[in-house]
């Protein structure tokens, strides 16, 4: 059972019902549940979208796109059925926040989905969970059944004339399906291969209808935004970055865990105070700030770094999915880069050549390099390959593989050079295993 953690600096908004039995609908109602959905039903779509815009809530999946703006892109006059699609295919290494949301607060996801549906005029929503989360899918299914039994879902939600149905769906193991267009393909019963954009899903999405796709954390946040009011929610965060974020602090820290902290919270403080510092009295070597696809940061780069989309972007990385991976001084960065690339090589769907071939060659180069058979030219070649993947694929997986690699090579070039000329890796002993 995933351990819940707590720290005085946390601002518990999305996590406020965690560990309180809110997966049971009666408990959820006792804790104020479904009031936000009722309010939205009374207020109507324009009010909801304005609230969401004013809240400065930005997509928690990684891109940080403003949620209210995304919802406003759905054309009102389109005669095709509209859909809400909740992305719970959480697969970015370093990220495990949706895991806790589904486990502790499934009704918040349902309520958020209803609100999104009301905002865009959809009658149907899908909640897609990764296949490995079977026990969480069962919790979600139970919650959906309970919401139907109470009349919160169905033909006449909350006794109104409005219809809203929710279907839960399981994936079957594919990182790529976390990309929104591949997610739609998967939900349509196909291989998870990205679609070319435009058209964007807001115009042509699931089954050809306008579709809003939001990360599960974004959706679970929506009822709280309505409940506390957009202004109060926005004020919790930093400029243009409303509210809080579920930061998954993992790796070499003393107290790893999912902590809900205000947007803009200092990264150094997050590691040293919230997560208890580097375990075993070691020192910090590097931090991956937002899941495996975000470029690594050095200790000197996190001194004054506030964790929001804009500040981390300015520091040359990305806030991404909120997965803060902490790396200590006993870690081989070449091995870390290799394991990262093994993952992307395994998960590339093979649709776009720069990604399919690029991840494969990068994995081969890094494997050879780490095993001590690298030559000086390889370092530049790795960089050249990665640079040529950037921006040349349908979906961001190519960039997601290239960006961290470029970061590792640029910031730890010396460590790459230390592996040259057959020198044994000073840290690692599992070279041969790091190849799936």
């Amino acid at each position, binding site marked *: 059972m*995933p351990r819940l953690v707590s720290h005085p600096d946390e601002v518990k908004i999305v996590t406020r019902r965690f560990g309180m039995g809110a997966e049971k609908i009666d408990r959820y109602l006792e804790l104020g549940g479904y009031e936000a959905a009722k309010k939205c039903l009374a207020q109507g779509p324009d009010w909801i979208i304005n609230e969401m815009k004013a809240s400065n809530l930005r997509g928690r999946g990684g891109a940080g796109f403003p949620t209210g703006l995304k919802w406003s892109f759905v054309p009102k006059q389109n005669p095709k059925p509209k859909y809400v699609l909740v992305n719970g295919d*959480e697969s970015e*290494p*370093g990220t495990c926040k949706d895991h806790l949301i589904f486990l502790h607060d499934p009704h918040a996801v349902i309520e958020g989905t209803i609100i999104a549906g009301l905002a865009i005029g959809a009658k149907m929503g899908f909640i897609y969970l990764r296949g490995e989360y079977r*026990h969480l899918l069962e919790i979600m299914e139970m919650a959906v059944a309970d919401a139907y039994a109470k009349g919160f879902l169905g033909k006449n939600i909350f006794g109104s004339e409005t219809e809203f149905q929710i*279907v839960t769906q399981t994936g079957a193991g594919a990182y790529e399906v976390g990309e929104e267009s591949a997610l739609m393909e998967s939900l349509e019963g196909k291989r998870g291969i990205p679609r070319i954009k435009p058209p964007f899903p807001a115009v042509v999405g699931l089954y050809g209808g306008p579709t809003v796709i939001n990360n599960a954390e974004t959706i679970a946040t929506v009822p709280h935004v309505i409940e506390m009011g957009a202004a109060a929610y926005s004020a919790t965060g930093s400029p243009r970055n409303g509210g809080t974020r579920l930061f998954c602090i993992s790796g070499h820290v003393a107290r790893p865990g999912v902590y809900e902290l205000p947007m803009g919270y200092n990264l150094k403080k997050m590691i040293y105070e919230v997560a208890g510092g580097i375990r075993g009295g070691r020192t910090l070597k590097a931090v991956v700030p937002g899941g495996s696809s975000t470029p690594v940061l050095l200790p000197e780069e996190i001194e004054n770094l506030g964790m929001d989309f804009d500040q981390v972007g300015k520091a040359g990385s990305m806030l991404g999915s909120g997965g803060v991976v902490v790396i200590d001084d006993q870690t081989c960065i070449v091995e*870390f880069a290799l394991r990262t690339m093994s993952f992307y090589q395994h998960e590339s769907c093979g649709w776009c050549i720069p990604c399919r071939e690029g991840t494969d060659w990068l994995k081969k180069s890094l494997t050879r390099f780490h095993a001590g058979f690298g030559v000086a030219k390889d370092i530049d070649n790795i960089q050249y390959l990665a640079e040529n993947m950037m921006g040349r694929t349908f979906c961001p997986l190519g960039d997601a593989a290239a960006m961290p690699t470029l970061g590792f090579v640029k910031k730890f070039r010396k460590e790459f050079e230390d592996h040259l000329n057959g020198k044994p890796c000073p840290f690692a002993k599992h070279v041969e295993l790091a190849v799936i």
Partner: protein
Amino acid sequence: MSPNEMSPETMTLFSPQLAARFDALVLKYPLKRSALIPMLLYAQDEIGYLSDAVVAEVAERIGITELEVRNVASYYSMLRFKPVGKYNVQVCTNIVCMLRGAYGVFESFQEELGIGHKGVTSDGVFSLEEVECIGACCWAPAIQVNYEFHDELTAGHVPGIVAGYRGRALAEGTPTHA
């Protein structure tokens, strides 16, 4: 009845409960085909893997060709065309689990079970796999045995985990798809 034999009354490979579930599943979506991936996964959970007969029945139920079913199934890493052990041990070795000692845990499973990556024990009780991130990074290193998570592991936990599942296999009789 072996799961690979069709029951003449129902003309399905699956248990009556699963067959009923599939009948309902295809009606849940605007398009039937959306039921394909969940159907394959649930079928695999019951039968053990996607046998030729499973592929044929799923194709029939969805109304697509067997080739289309195989084409989709081959994309997803959890779907398989070969049997695994009754308890499929999946050790995450992705970056965070690796930082916290996942390869030590993986080696320990290799020693304890006497098999390697993608191996199956001769009695069919266990199989072992090195897998990508399973979404338990803050509780690393973590593994999944079938769908059950075990987290915050060290190599020292491995014999106990193996013994626990071996005991369950003994209590439940011979493995279903050895």
